[in-house]
């Protein structure tokens, strides 16, 4: 291989030999001049190069222009004019167009002609003949597939049997058509198994002023720098299955964070109990009885006296902050309002009590109240969810109008249960219980700790059994098990305002911010991905089981020329198995083409030069 004296290319001498041969044939067969010209044309490498180059262009077009979409999609994307142009020129289906088929036929003719013309019964020619004919085989196989093959899919539920499948194509009107094809046998899905990978977890950092997100290593004990910033993060502890134990405690006698422990009784038994915090989670909704229990701390005796005489509740509102100036707007759906001090306008589209909950608003628990807001400004329209409990949500999630900070409050008050029991409490120690029915105060009773009161309209009883003036949680992270459940890491962050540490739970989808509010950390699952999915199939032909196999991706089942592949699964519930059904009688032809091609190229580029060198050496000797 050391010699480079040979011309690049595959033997120039023979080519000139061909030219001589050609001109001689011209002299002899003058009459057949035209036909020999055509023959020469189909034999020429020039034609080959031109065809290949045109194919390259066609292939590029076929990937740049979206293929086989519906007419509507084309019109939406490219406009009517271009869409029509694509349809007429078949650029919307390049690889199955008439002109591309013509190209392939030309290619085939070229391959066959040049092979015939150059046919020599010498061993060295093996590679040339094999490669060129292999391509012809592959193309023939492709035609067979196109003419006689079918490909489609069907979703089967566990325990069910199918004897058909569906194929998909774009019809002449540019619409998607599904065609049902019958199978000459039926397929029973006896079992479908979806196996998931163990979930993996990652620690993601976000530096706000750089707007940069980066995945950090989860290696306990290792101090690592957050790329592109001065923060250093050390993971100090890791628990594979952690739980945050919270024990309510009272820290003072002064009413710093007043809370009451309320118990609700059905006819006899305890129906519900829990803490109500005046400053945070101050209500409980019992959907079944349409009952709401509230605990409201009144700032003074006078305020309490006022509250006893009227129902009036706080107003739900949306607050808009722009360059440190905050403006409130009452919650009113579909009313367009101008945001003061800007040329933006906004509109509240809907509110929910529990974001992501599919039930009607009225049936949702008050877990994650949110308002959806549409903002219109110079950069166009943006819709954004604003969460009452997570006022910093929009900081973590980039949006068009970054300068606008939206928060909301009091969404709960849009909801008024039929029955409400409201515990009022004032610093002077006055305690009044209101029973409100249909927005009217029905009863006013002073309440005492540990006493049961009957709610007349509902038939259940209620009791305040404990009162903490300064409610707090004693928090403790405990290990529940050694298996991976809810992993948590204890992270220490060093930054401009010193060291700070906290537990990060993988089931907490909200970021934990460092004290300077510039670094956020999220410890989250990378999503539980699918390890594999398998279907236990049984083929039934004429009422008899003729084949059985558990198929998986990369391992299909074959029967009567049909091949059944595992292709997908029900992404939501994992209930059905997606099968792909393929029949392609061209496969043997194509695969022999593949084999010949591989063998051919290896021969041309490795074996032939080696043999050449050997004969050359022998001749020199």
């Amino acid at each position, binding site marked *: 291989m050391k010699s480079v004296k040979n011309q690049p290319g595959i033997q120039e001498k023979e080519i000139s030999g061909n030219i001589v041969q050609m001109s001689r044939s011209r002299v002899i067969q003058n009459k057949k001049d035209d036909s020999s010209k055509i023959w020469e044309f189909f034999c020429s490498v020039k034609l080959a190069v031109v065809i290949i180059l045109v194919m390259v262009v066609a292939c590029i077009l076929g990937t740049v222009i979206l293929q086989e979409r519906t007419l509507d999609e084309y019109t939406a994307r490219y406009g009517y004019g271009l869409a029509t142009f694509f349809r007429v020129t078949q650029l919307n289906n390049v690889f199955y167009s008439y002109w591309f088929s013509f190209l392939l036929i030309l290619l085939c003719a070229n391959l066959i002609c040049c092979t015939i013309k150059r046919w020599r019964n010498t061993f060295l020619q093996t590679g040339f003949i094999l490669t060129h004919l292999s391509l012809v085989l592959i193309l023939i196989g492709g035609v067979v597939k196109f003419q006689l093959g079918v490909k489609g899919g069907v979703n089967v539920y566990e325990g069910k049997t199918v004897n058909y499948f569906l194929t998909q194509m774009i019809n002449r009107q540019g619409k998607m058509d599904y065609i049902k094809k019958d199978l000459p046998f039926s397929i029973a899905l006896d079992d479908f198994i979806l196996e998931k990978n163990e979930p993996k977890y990652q620690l993601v950092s976000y530096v706000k002023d750089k707007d940069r997100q980066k995945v950090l290593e989860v290696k306990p004990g290792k101090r690592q720098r957050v790329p592109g910033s001065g923060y250093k993060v050390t993971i100090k502890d890791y628990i594979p299955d952690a739980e945050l134990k919270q024990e309510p405690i009272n820290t003072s006698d002064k009413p710093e964070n007043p809370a009451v422990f309320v118990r609700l009784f059905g006819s006899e038994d305890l129906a519900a109990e829990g803490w109500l915090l005046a400053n945070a989670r101050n209500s409980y909704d019992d959907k079944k009885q349409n009952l709401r229990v509230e605990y409201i701390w009144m700032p003074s005796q006078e305020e309490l006296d006022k509250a006893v005489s009227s129902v009036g509740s706080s107003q739900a509102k949306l607050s808009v902050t722009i360059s440190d100036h905050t403006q409130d707007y009452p919650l009113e759906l579909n009313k367009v309002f101008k945001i003061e001090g800007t040329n933006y306008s906004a509109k509240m589209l809907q509110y929910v009590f529990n974001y992501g909950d599919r039930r009607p608003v009225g049936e949702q628990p008050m877990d994650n109240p949110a308002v959806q807001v549409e903002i219109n400004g110079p950069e166009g329209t943006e819709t954004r969810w604003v969460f009452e409990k997570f006022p910093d949500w929009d900081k973590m999630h980039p949006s068009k109008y970054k300068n606008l900070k939206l928060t909301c409050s009091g969404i709960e008050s849009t909801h008024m249960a039929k029955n409400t029991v409201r515990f009022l409490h004032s610093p002077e120690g006055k305690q009044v219980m209101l029973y409100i029915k249909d927005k009217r105060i029905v009863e006013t009773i002073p309440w005492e700790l540990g006493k049961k009161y009957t709610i007349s309209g509902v038939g259940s009883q209620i009791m305040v059994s404990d009162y903490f003036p300064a409610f707090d949680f004693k928090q403790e992270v405990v290990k529940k098990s050694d298996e991976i459940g809810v992993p948590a890491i204890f992270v220490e962050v060093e930054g401009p305002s010193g060291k700070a540490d906290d537990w990060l739970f993988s089931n907490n989808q909200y970021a934990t911010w460092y004290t300077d509010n510039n670094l956020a950390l999220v410890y989250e699952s990378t999503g539980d991905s699918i390890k594999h999915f398998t279907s236990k199939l049984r083929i039934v032909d004429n009422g008899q089981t003729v084949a059985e196999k558990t198929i998986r991706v990369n391992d299909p089942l074959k029967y009567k020329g049909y091949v059944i592949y595992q292709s997908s699964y029900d992404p939501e519930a994992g209930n059905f198995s997606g099968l792909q059904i393929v029949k392609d009688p061209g*496969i043997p032809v194509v695969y022999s083409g593949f084999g010949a091609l591989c063998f051919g190229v290896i021969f041309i580029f490795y074996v032939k030069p080696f043999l050449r060198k050997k004969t050359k050496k022998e001749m020199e000797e």
Partner: protein
Amino acid sequence: MSLINITLIVYVVASIAYIAREIWPSAGIRWASLGLFILAFCLNLAMVTKRSIEAGHPPFSNLYESLIFYACCTTFVYIIFEFVYNFRIVGALASVLSMLILLYATLQDDTIRPIMPALKSNWMLVHVVTYMLGYAAFGISFVTSIIFLVAKPFVKKTHGSSREEEKEILPRNFDKLSYKIVAFGFPFLTLGLVTGAVWAKKAWGDYWSWDPKETWSLITWLAYLVYLHTPLVLPKMNINKSKAAVMLAIWLLISFGIVNFTFVGMNYLPSAEDSAHVYGSK
């Protein structure tokens, strides 16, 4: 310092050594530069091995893994050629090429993720390895073409005087060298294409479905096929030889651009969103 940074530095040092060897041709620097390059290869191979052990699967399930493997193959193929031919400045650029590939890898998401079921196949293993070796050869032919094009106007007809230079391939002959390198790589590309089709048949039920990634790998194959056939055409077209050589060298540069587009540029196509084979789409 992390392994990847050390590897990058060794690539740079190796590149400098190759330039030094061009200026002061001595056997000592020759071996030193080759030694450095082999060291870089070992480090790169260590990266690939470490990654596959950590991930628990062959290291080509995402773009990051494929890129470090690609760099490794490029270095490997170069070293083979260095032993077969007496190369000149090629090593300096080959080293830079591998370094750039690695550098590009550092920009990618390097999280280890579980591999999807379709990737668990031996066909896929053969497919990727052959493809990467093919791509690596084309990378080297890209380098030789650049050197050919740059050197052509300068070194017209200087005759090699010393015996050492006689044995060496002069840059003005790099057109023939490029051809040999492509001829080495093309069977790998063909094997990669065919095994890819067989694998697709096994995993997705169809050996060819004109998926954008498939189509672009066909385009790549066709581009080099044109390159291999043109030497048969050009002599018939009264183009002078030196002009033809320049055209072929330029065609190789374009073809390598196509290789890289097929490898990483695909994601920018409008049709990539529903391709089954584009990195990182799922």
